[in-house]
């Protein structure tokens, strides 16, 4: 898993690249949480364009970050999820909680 963050005011954009499964979950979670220690970040945009595989372990990572943002009154958006990943997101009802752009 490769992560690439860009800060823009209160917004943090993170582009993920690779396979987001249980094996890569811990690294991904730790990376994002380290950056989110900065409480002035209120919006997290996760770009899934480079994610070639995600299963429900990956979903858990995204839902966990959603909770972190929500606690501080911020929000999370997801963009560019492929068809299979989008299906898992839809099944989980996450789209009622987060913004979604650019399918």
């Amino acid at each position: 898993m490769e992560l690439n963050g860009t800060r823009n005011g209160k917004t943090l954009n993170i582009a993920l690249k690779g396979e987001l499964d249980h094996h890569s979950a811990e690294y991904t979670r730790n990376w994002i949480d380290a950056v989110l220690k900065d409480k002035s970040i209120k919006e997290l945009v996760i770009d899934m364009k480079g994610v070639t595989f995600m299963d429900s372990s990956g979903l858990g990572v995204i839902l966990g970050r959603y909770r972190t943002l929500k606690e501080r009154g911020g929000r999370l958006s997801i963009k560019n999820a492929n068809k299979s990943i989008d299906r898992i997101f839809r099944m989980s009802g996450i789209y009622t909680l987060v913004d979604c752009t650019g399918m």
Partner: protein
Amino acid sequence: MAQNEMHISFSGLSQNEGFARMVAGSFAMQLNPTIEELSDIRTAVSEAVTNAIIHGYENKPGTVYMDCYLNDNEFTAVIRDEGSGIEDISLARQPFYTSKPELERSGMGFTVMEAFMDTLEVASEPGKGTVVTLKKKIGQDQSQ
């Protein structure tokens, strides 16, 4: 096509999750699946193998077994562990149910397996282990 089968077992290490779905996907390739069918199989196998590692063996050393079969146009994967087992299978299969929320599990593993495959069977005995059987007919996808 003729019947074909393979049996694999591997150490219950998280780095083998990607390996296991790759093995299942490569074997299924012989049925000429669409990219979407292949992705469904890879995802479902990943769920079952991950569960064996984190729930079955709770990250302690153990061996995960996977048997794959090609019969006519049907792909079958049987994923087995000799770990903790499941007390209440119908509870475990509920969407969002997880016994490990502290690990940020989504509780959607079984739900994903059910949605992505044609059939999902779970057999388990507490203290003995769990067997998950996944089946999918290839070339039935109407949307393709």
